[in-house]
C-alpha cells in the first residue's frame, strides 16, 4: 500500500509537469490576449499526431521530431490568431474569441478524424517501454523524459519572459495594453507571437501525452477540460500558479485512482468548484476575475 501511494505521488508529480507546460501556454495566451484558447486541448492532440506521423513515416525519434513539430505548431498558432482571432473586435470580443477557438478546435478534430480515423494510437520510442527501478517501484522512463522536457520548456518560457526585450514587451502588454502601445510596443505582433508560443508548447505536451496515453481525435475534450480546471484553479494568467495547480491536481488524481479509478478525473472538477466557491479569483489569482 505504501509503495502504491509513493508511486502514485511520483507519477502525479512527474505527470503534472507535462500538464503544467500545456496549462502554461493556455494561461500565457489568456494573460496577454484575454482569450481562453479552448482549442489548446485539440492542439495537444494535433501535436501528438504530428509526432506520430514523423515517427511512423520518417522513423524519427520523438525528441528529434520536436525540432520539426514545435516550429510547426508555432506557425499554426500564429496563423489561427491572425486569421480568426485578430479580426474580432467590439464589446462581445470575449465570448466571440472563445467561440472562434471552439470552432477552430472542431475543424482540427474533424480533419484529424478524416486523416487518422477514430482508432486509438500511441507513440513509441526507445524510452516508452523501458522503466527505472527507484524507491522500490518501477517508473516508466517516459515519465522522467516528459518531466525533463517540461522543466526545460518551462525554464525556456521563463527566460523568454523575464530575460529578453520581447518578454518585457509581453509582460508590459499583460499589465496594460494601452500603456504598452504608448511606449511603442507593437501589441499586435506581441499578441501573435504569444499565441504562437502558447500553441508551440503543445507540440512538446502532445509528444509526451501521446507517449504516456493512447489517443484519438476525441482526446482533446478530456485534455481541455483538465487544462481549464488547472488554469481556473490557479487563477487566470498566473504561470507559476498553473505549475502548482497542475502538480497538485495530477497527484490528487493519481491518489484517488488507487481506490476509485472511475471517479479519479472528477477530482479535477470538484477541486475547482470547491475552490471557486471560496476564492472566486482562484488560488494564485493576480487580479480579481470579477472586474469587468
Amino acid at each position, binding site marked *: 500500500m505504501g509503495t502504491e501511494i509513493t508511486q502514485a505521488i511520483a507519477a502525479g508529480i512527474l505527470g503534472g509537469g507535462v500538464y503544467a507546460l500545456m496549462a502554461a501556454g493556455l494561461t500565457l495566451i*489568456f494573460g496577454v490576449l*484575454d482569450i*481562453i484558447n*479552448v482549442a489548446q486541448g485539440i492542439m495537444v492532440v494535433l501535436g501528438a499526431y504530428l509526432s506520430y506521423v514523423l515517427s511512423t513515416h520518417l522513423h524519427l525519434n520523438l525528441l528529434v521530431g520536436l525540432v520539426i513539430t514545435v516550429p510547426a505548431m508555432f506557425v499554426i498558432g500564429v496563423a489561427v490568431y491572425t486569421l*480568426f482571432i485578430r*479580426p*474580432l473586435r*467590439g464589446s*462581445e470580443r*470575449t*465570448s*466571440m474569441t*472563445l*467561440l*472562434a477557438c*471552439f*470552432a*477552430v*478546435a*472542431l*475543424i482540427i*478534430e*474533424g*480533419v484529424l*478524424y*478524416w486523416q487518422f480515423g477514430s482508432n486509438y494510437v500511441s507513440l513509441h520510442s526507445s524510452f516508452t517501454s523501458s522503466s527505472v527501478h527507484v524507491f522500490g517501484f518501477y517508473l516508466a522512463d517516459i515519465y522522467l523524459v516528459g518531466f525533463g522536457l517540461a522543466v526545460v520548456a518551462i525554464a525556456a518560457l521563463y527566460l523568454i519572459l523575464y530575460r529578453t526585450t520581447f518578454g518585457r514587451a509581453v509582460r508590459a502588454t499583460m499589465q496594460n495594453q494601452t500603456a504598452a502601445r504608448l511606449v511603442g510596443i507593437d501589441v499586435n505582433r506581441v499578441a501573435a507571437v504569444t499565441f504562437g508560443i502558447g500553441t508551440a508548447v503543445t507540440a512538446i505536451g502532445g509528444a509526451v501525452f501521446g507517449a504516456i496515453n493512447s489517443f484519438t481525435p476525441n482526446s482533446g*475534450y478530456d485534455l481541455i*477540460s483538465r487544462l*481549464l*480546471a488547472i*488554469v*481556473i484553479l490557479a487563477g*487566470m494568467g498566473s504561470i507559476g500558479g498553473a505549475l502548482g495547480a497542475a502538480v497538485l491536481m495530477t497527484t490528487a488524481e493519481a491518489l484517488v485512482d488507487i481506490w476509485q479509478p*472511475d*471517479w479519479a*478525473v*472528477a477530482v479535477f*472538477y*470538484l477541486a*475547482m*468548484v470547491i475552490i*471557486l*466557491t471560496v476564492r*472566486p479569483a482562484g488560488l494564485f489569482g493576480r487580479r480579481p*476575475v*470579477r472586474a*469587468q
Partner: protein
Amino acid sequence: MSKSVARGLRLAGLAALIAMAALFPLVFSNPTATNFGVVTLIFVIVASAWNIFSGYSGYLSLGHAVFYGTGAYFLVVASRDWHLTGSAVFWLLPLAGVAAAVIAVPVGLIALRVRRHTFVVITIAVFFIAQLSASNLSITGGSSGLLAPVPNNWDPATYNNPFYYVGLIIAVATVALSLAVRRSRFGLQLRAIRDDEDRAAGLGVRAMPVKLTALVLSAFITGMAGALWVYFIGQAIPQFVFDPLFDLAVVLMAFFGGLGTIAGPVLGALVLEPTQLWLNLQQSNGYTAEILFGALFLVVILFLPRGVLPTAAEYITAGRARLMRHRDRSQPLGTPSAQTPTPAAGSAQ
C-alpha cells in the same frame, strides 16, 4: 404604414407560420421529414431557452447539455419506475423540467459568482462532471445507458406526429415566454446586467436573483426538451445525452440568428438543424459535418458577428435612409418632403 398595421401584419405572419408548422406533418407525412421536424423543433425550444438566459444576460453558457441530460435521464428513470408508457409519458415532461431546474440552482449559485471567461469555463466543467457522473452512476445505467419506454401500439405511419405536436406546443410556449421576458421589467434587468452589471447593481438591480431566475427558467425548458428528445430517440447513452457538440450547436444557432433577439434563435434552429441532419444523411462519416460546422461557425463569427436578423435589419435601415436622402435631394428646394420617415422598426424582434 402605421404602427398598428405593422403589428397586424406581424401577428398575421406569426399566425401563418404557426399554422404552417401545424400542417407540416400532414403535408409531408414521410417519416424522414417528420423526423427532421421533431428534432428541429427540439432545437427551436433549446435555442430559445438558451437565449432567454445567455442571450439576455450576456452570460454564455456552454453547459446547457447538463439540463438537457438531466431532463432526459429523469424521463427514462421515472417512466420505468412508475410504469408509464404511451402518451402518459408526455405528462412527465414538466416534471423533467423541474428536475433540470432543481439542478440549475446549485450550478447557478456557484457559476454565477464569476463572470465572463471564468463563467464559461465553469459551465464547461459542470458539463464534464455531469457526463462523468452519468457514465459512472448506477441510476443512469453507467456507460451503456438506459432504454426509454417504447410506445409500441402507435401506428408506424404517424409515429412521429405525437412528438411533433408536443414539441410544437412547447416551442410556441417558449417563444411566447421569451417575448414576455424581453418585454418585462425582469427582461430589462437582465439586459442591464448584460450591458454593465456593476452599474445595474448600482441602480438597484439585485443581480444574483435575477441571473439565477433566468438560468432556472432556461434550464426548466431545456430539461423538458431533453426529456422529449430521449423519448423520441428511445435511449439515453451518456456521450449522446451529454454531448459537447450539442452545446456548441445551440450557441451557434442563437449567434447565427441574432443573440438576444426573439426570432433569431428560432431562425438559427430552423436553418441549421435541418442542414446538419441533411448533411448527416448525405455523409455517413461524422467528420465532414464537423468540419463544415466549424467553418460555418467561423464565418458567422467573423462576418455576421451580430447574427443574420440584426445585420439584415441594419442593411434595411441603411437602405431606407439612403433612399430617403436620395428622394430629398431630387425634390426641388423649399418643398418639404411629405414622407415622414418610418421609424426603423426593430425588425430584429
